[in-house]
């Protein structure tokens, strides 16, 4: 039994580029995993994580090829196996759970049948035996009402439930090794916390080894025993999770860990400069040289090798760096910076945007609405109801809440893209018309919007020059030369160079695209910028840079932000005030410092408790159930169905009162503030200490 479960030796894989040339994606990776071990694999996007993970199933993408080395599963080299032999291992003894659960499931097939299919394929199960096993599996991943659920189609499940079904499918063949590729990316914090907890539980009960691929340090810290860091296709550090997190020795690991925003610090971490080399740029020496503060001549000419350090620990700690001793000796890494340092807090806040009692609905309008009513279709509930808030000049108001809570809807309404059903919107002291078309042209430049996904928000056929030219042409009387100069200057402001003017979006990295989108918004010289999840599609290292940029621009230009995000650590770093939204209703609003300290609204408490801090051993506090509500309740408190602190029928029947916890800090709950304050722990400082769920409820 001394044999390892998995042994990868000197593995190099590549894709054929042109005639006989290979672009190496995974480079000389040696790594082993014991039975039941959970190994986290981190690195920025494009570092080869997924490609490597797939080789553990003996799988290569089209055009891929193993150039050197081997992958041995229980001593058997996977790439020497015949296809049918490989098929008997894949899916059964090694299974994968892909990034997007919905893509792994067939949309036209009931979930029960899909799992049964896997069982038939790998275990030869059929009939009642198979049925029973399907129900077992679904129960194991804590899905509710499994008898009914097996008959549903994938689109009838929420994101979290889909991911659970995907996990159940992965477990169907009782694998010894599970490869998880970003299994929680794109899920809400609360849902993510439940999935992570489930994975840990499965690992403990079944002893399945897991390779957990992610760029989310917090998630890794919760699930894994060991961490491997990948850079440019190479493993640069490998060690026990506690040791690596507490004392990273490779400069890249330090940079990565340092750029993760932390709930427990009120600042934003330092962004790591540069980005990973594109595959195919094989240079002599260490690949990290251009981004490394410790690099010297040796680094440029001699390839470092992965070697053990003398650090104590249960698992050998390996690093691939010539100067790791110097790195360690240099002391702590990653300083937090206060993003709000440059902003003058002394000014009297002047209201800029005022929303009063705004109702928004996607329900049909006009004739179609009449027809629907005549047919007796029930009117859908309001997506956003009685939304009242003020944004002051130069401030950042964050809007947080789970997916579907109506955050983007509110941004669309402010932008004039979706007229509200009722309510008043004032901008700069004047009534703001409900659609862009009906707003005076002079108004248009004052409100700008930046979207989540820069791939979609920049026209792929336009050059950066054309993209930046659009607002300048529209809003300002400038000649072509003037606009060109201004575009160049804007690029400088977002730390790009005027050389980028002639490029198309397809020729930019994700972070660069988002900078162009930021530049386009600021070209308009806006008073208010609506930022809808502007960093959630970006790597942590890039995210830190974009946030720093936004804060800097705000300090220079004095624009106000409506900052929509589900990342509470990021919000803490960048916001002045926070509004917490559930089902289109505000639960709590107040200055950032007050939101992150008790008393919390029970929903805020739920969100904060679920944030995975990058601290090994810390576990989520699963306060509320993992369900996505289709629509808000008709009466009472909007959070009544999931609230862990619900006090009784009053919550179902009566709208909770607005209680003032301090100046400008409002909590809408029936529980008196005193009582909330006394019963709640400070989750921010508690986040540093490993804790266990208070009201663990995995349903």
């Amino acid at each position, binding site marked *: 039994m001394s044999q390892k479960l998995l042994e990868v030796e000197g593995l190099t894989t590549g894709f054929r580029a042109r005639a006989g040339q290979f672009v190496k994606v995974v480079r000389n990776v040696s790594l082993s995993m014991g039975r039941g071990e959970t190994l986290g694999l981190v690195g920025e996007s494009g570092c080869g994580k997924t490609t490597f993970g797939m080789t553990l199933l003996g799988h290569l993408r089209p055009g891929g090829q193993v150039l050197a080395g081997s992958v041995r599963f229980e001593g058997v080299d996977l790439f020497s196996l015949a296809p049918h032999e490989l098929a008997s291992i894949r899916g059964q003894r090694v299974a994968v759970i892909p990034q997007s659960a919905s893509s792994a499931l067939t949309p036209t097939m009931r979930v029960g049948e899909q799992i049964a299919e896997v069982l038939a394929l790998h275990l030869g199960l059929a009939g009642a035996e198979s049925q029973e096993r399907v129900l077992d599996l679904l129960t194991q991943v804590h899905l509710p009402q499994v008898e009914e659920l097996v008959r549903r189609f994938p689109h009838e499940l929420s994101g979290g439930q889909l991911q659970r079904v995907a996990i159940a499918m992965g477990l169907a063949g009782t694998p010894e090794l599970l490869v998880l590729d970003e299994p929680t990316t794109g899920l809400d914090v609360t849902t993510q916390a439940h999935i992570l907890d489930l994975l840990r539980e499965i690992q403990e009960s079944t002893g399945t080894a897991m390779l957990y691929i992610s760029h989310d340090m917090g998630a890794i810290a919760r699930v894994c025993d060991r961490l491997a860091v990948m850079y440019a296709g190479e493993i640069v550090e490998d060690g026990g999770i506690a040791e690596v997190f507490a004392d990273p020795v490779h400069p890249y690991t330090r940079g990565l860990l340092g750029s993760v925003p932390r709930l427990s610090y009120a600042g934003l971490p330092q962004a790591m400069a540069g980005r990973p080399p594109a595959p195919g740029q094989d240079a002599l020496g260490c690949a990290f040289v251009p981004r490394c503060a410790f690099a010297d001549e040796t680094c440029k000419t001699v390839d470092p090798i992965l070697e053990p350090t003398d650090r104590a620990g249960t698992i050998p700690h390996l690093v691939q760096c010539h100067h790791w001793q110097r790195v360690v000796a240099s002391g702590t890494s990653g300083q937090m910076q206060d993003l709000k340092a440059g902003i003058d807090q002394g000014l009297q806040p002047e209201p800029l945007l005022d929303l009063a009692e705004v109702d928004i609905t996607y329900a049909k309008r006009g004739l179609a609405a009449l027809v629907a009513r005549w047919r007796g279709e029930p009117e859908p509930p309001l997506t956003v109801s009685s939304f009242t808030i003020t944004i002051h000049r130069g401030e950042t108001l964050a809007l947080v809440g789970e997916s579907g809570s109506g955050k983007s809807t509110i941004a669309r309404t402010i932008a004039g893209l979706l007229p509200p059903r009722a309510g008043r919107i004032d901008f700069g002291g004047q009534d703001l018309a409900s659609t862009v078309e009906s707003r005076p*042209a002079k*108004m*248009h430049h004052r*409100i*700008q919007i930046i979207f989540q996904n820069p791939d979609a*928000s*920049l*026209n792929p*056929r336009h050059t950066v020059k054309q993209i930046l030219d659009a607002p300048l042409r529209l809003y300002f009387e400038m000649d072509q030369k003037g606009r060109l100069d201004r575009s160049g200057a804007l690029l400088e402001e977002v730390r790009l160079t005027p050389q980028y003017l002639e490029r198309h979006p397809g020729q930019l990295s994700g972070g660069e695209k988002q900078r162009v989108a930021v530049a386009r918004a600021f070209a308009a010289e806006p008073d208010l910028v609506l930022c809808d999840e502007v960093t959630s599609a970006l790597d942590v290292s890039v995210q830190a840079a974009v946030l720093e940029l936004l804060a800097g621009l705000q300090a220079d230009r004095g624009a106000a932000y409506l900052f929509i995000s589900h990342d509470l650590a990021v919000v803490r770093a960048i916001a002045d005030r926070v509004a917490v939204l559930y089902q289109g209703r505000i639960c709590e609003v107040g200055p950032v410092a007050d939101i992150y300290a008790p008393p919390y609204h029970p929903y805020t408490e739920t969100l904060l408790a679920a944030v995975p801090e990058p601290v090994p051993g810390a576990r989520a506090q699963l306060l509320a159930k993992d369900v996505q509500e289709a629509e808000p309740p008709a009466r009472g408190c909007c959070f009544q169905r999931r609230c862990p602190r619900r006090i009784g029928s009053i919550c179902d029947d009566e709208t909770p009162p607005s209680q003032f916890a301090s100046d400008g800090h409002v909590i809408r709950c029936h529980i008196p503030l005193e009582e909330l304050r006394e019963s709640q722990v400070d989750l921010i400082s508690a986040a540093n200490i490993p804790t266990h769920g208070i009201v663990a409820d995995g349903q």
Partner: protein
Amino acid sequence: MRSLSAVPIRLAQSLRSFGYIWRSLRRSRQGTIGLLIVIVHMFIAVASPYIVPYSHHDIDGKNRLAAPSVEHPFGTDSFGRDLFTRVLLGGRAAIGVALLAAAIAVLWGGLLGILLAFIGGRVDEVAMRLIDALLAIPGLLVVLLVVAALGTGFGVLTLTLGYAYGVSTVRVARGAALAYVASDFITAARARGERKTNIVMRELIPNLLDVLLVEYVMRASWALTAISSLSYLGFGIAPPTPDWGRMVFENQVILAVHPWGTLFPVLALASLIIGINLAGDALSKAIGLDRSQEAPT
């Protein structure tokens, strides 16, 4: 006004990205062959009046129904007219009508489809019902009716074919545009307060040029087939203008004794249509559309 003057520049910039399409077209062997055939045909269509040895109505009374010879490389027809001359000239009218009709089709059909996708809502719904109703009437039938009523002038043919193919182009263009209408960059332009014409011209159309280009090539190929069929039936290009379809009709009765009069026009027409289709398929593959599923109307 500024926005209008910018259109040619913008078009040129968008066309620059066709450099990539051109290269992938050339990489496919079929595409290259198709392209070569089309280029040869286009050259002949343009240059034939200057290079043909005779006039298309010159009659060589001593040499009727002659087999190919040095004097008459393709032989002569029953009047003693030189077939080589008539075949070289015989594509001009049909190609001219086809290219123009396809241009008209893509222009009005494409623009209408894009606008409908952009406007959406009730207008789009009603208009598409109408288009579907029009599509139910076979295009060739419409052309036959119109030609029967108005005669077979060059203008009548071009306009009716342009109409008939435009109807189905509306659908294609609308479908392609729908994929972009809800995208964030269009939303961004709307939120910016751009005028609708600007959004369509600057943001939407550049993304659809490639689809419209493929659409144009395929429509031109179908139009060519249609005109030749019409000419064959006597509803197309009217004599004395030489035309492949008409030549096939005139010479088919004597096919057994004198195959040349049928063979050469058929070869000319078939090679051009095959060429266009090869090039068109490669073109649509190069830009990620596959039109092999779609049937001509």
